[in-house]
């Protein structure tokens, strides 16, 4: 028995580089790679779950995708929602990180409150937002009216639905960008700042000519990371608008879910999911190029 044990121990020691990652790799292969391959296969089939068997139809799903108006609506909403929310989160995140970057009394407490939305369960807080955004009795319209402004229809109007969702997304995720950028700011080298101070640069010049170029790779990294989830935002949109009113806030991702699980069209739904994946991939490849070139400079 102890002989076997020591033999195993010796084997583990000799083949450490192989044995240690093996369980994780096997599990990841089973739960990640296999389903993705299955999904890819389904994208080339016609299959309504529960009816018949998947039938191979080549590129037909992708041809249907190009002519599907709801796909283009989904892309449009996705660009609108993600473009706006990512820009706002990045800009606000940067400025709030600059704010937190200097120590002040009570900064710990402020930070603790400020990052609350980040960990809060998305569905739960989205429901609370839904309560607050109610046009008739919601507290947001009450507050607006009490300072003399007209209320808004928020998510009940197709004109403001996406904007309202952007607002909730910015509320929820700007703290995350702030934390990342703050960590980046704390790791910047002190020398350029000392040199600039000796040369008599003012705060704005220091920000523009020193901080911004130095922090650029971190900003792009934060953007990439946030985009991974933002382009695939589901919980919040599904909870607050379900893509409505009509399809005014239906992103491509939400539509792919509807096709797969609302209409049970597994083949076409999978093709849409592949399209979402491609968008995320291309965006991140481009961003990574930008990050690397920013690092070289």
């Amino acid at each position, binding site marked *: 028995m102890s002989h076997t044990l020591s033999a195993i121990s010796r084997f*583990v020691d000799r083949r450490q580089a192989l044995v240690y990652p093996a369980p994780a790799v096997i599990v990841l292969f089973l739960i*990640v790679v296999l389903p993705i391959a299955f*999904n890819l296969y*389904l994208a080339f089939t016609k299959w309504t779950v529960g009816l018949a068997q998947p039938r191979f139809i080549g590129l037909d799903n992708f041809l249907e995708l190009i002519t599907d108006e709801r796909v283009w609506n989904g892309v449009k909403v996705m660009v609108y929602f993600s473009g706006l929310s990512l820009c706002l989160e990045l800009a606000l995140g940067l400025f*709030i990180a600059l704010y937190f970057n200097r120590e002040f009394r009570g900064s710990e407490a402020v930070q603790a409150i400020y990052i609350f939305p980040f960990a809060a*369960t998305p569905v739960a807080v989205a429901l609370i937002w839904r*309560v607050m955004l109610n046009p008739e009795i919601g507290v947001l319209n009450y507050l607006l009216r009490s300072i003399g402004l007209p209320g808004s229809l928020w998510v009940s109007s197709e004109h403001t639905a996406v904007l309202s969702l952007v607002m909730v997304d910015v*509320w929820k995720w700007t703290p995350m960008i702030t*934390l990342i950028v703050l960590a980046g700011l704390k790791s910047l080298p002190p020398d350029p700042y000392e040199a600039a101070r000796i040369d008599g640069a003012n705060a704005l010049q220091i920000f523009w000519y020193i901080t911004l170029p130095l922090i650029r790779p971190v900003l792009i*990294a934060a953007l990439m990371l946030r985009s991974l989830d933002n382009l695939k935002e589901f919980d919040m949109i599904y909870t607050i608008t379900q893509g409505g009113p009509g399809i005014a806030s239906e992103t491509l991702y939400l539509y792919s879910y509807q096709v797969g699980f609302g209409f049970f069209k597994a083949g076409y739904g999978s093709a849409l999911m592949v399209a979402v994946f491609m968008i995320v991939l291309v965006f991140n490849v481009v961003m990574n190029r930008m990050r690397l070139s920013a690092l070289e400079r």
Partner: protein
Amino acid sequence: MRKRAAVKALKSTLFYAGAVALCVGPLFVFVWMIMTGLKTGVQNIAYPPEFIFTPTLENFQAVFQQHHFFRYLMNSLIIATLATGLSLALGLPAAYSIAKYRQGRIGMIILLARMTPFVSYLLPWYIIFRHLKLIDTYTALTLTHLIITLPMVAWLMVAFFESVPAELEDAAMIDGCSRLKSFLIIVLPLVRNGIATSAIMAFIFSWNQFLFSLILSGPQTKTVPVAVYNFISYGKIDWAGIGAAATLIVLPVSVFAFFVRKTIVQGLTMGALKD
């Protein structure tokens, strides 16, 4: 001199005004959530909204008694604990190996897991689990939650393992320690902060997971995000119930996040800040 003091006072006033402004948004939603839970159904649909009222705990009682919320909390707790434990068991040795032997390719699988839309996993998983009769089981939910938590733990821990000096291990091995033993009794205790952070992060993200549970859970394994979502799917919206349930769901993870807010960044950036 006086003018300078005035400018300084103005600056610090502005500074603290900024602090207040930053806290208003998070705090308002948080307080409104708790207030919604403490109001009666009638008070919740009153206009103008009531800011001062006599709080009642009846919503919390109803959530537990009529909606079996305790079972859902237990489900979430069990699944999040299993997913966290398994992620650590699998992720720690993998991360150690990636850090020590520079196994970039394993990192690629992890990145793939992170980039793929969750819905892409959902359809295959739904079909496979239905076939295996595993819908509405802890097994199915824990496995799918691993898709999120395992890459998270692995990436976070790579950064921590890289910070452990190799000399320490070498010294242990000269003293006759096996590599396995030195990993367990020398390296792991050195990265305990990282382990705590990644465990808490994994727990939070498993606890918050909605999409997988929405499709793959059932009456036996329903988790709290799905349970609270169901408060709106029966036609009438039970706002008081939502307030109480949301408070119960959000409080534990907020407390956790408070403890890891310093180290959380490494987990979030997955090493992206380093190279």
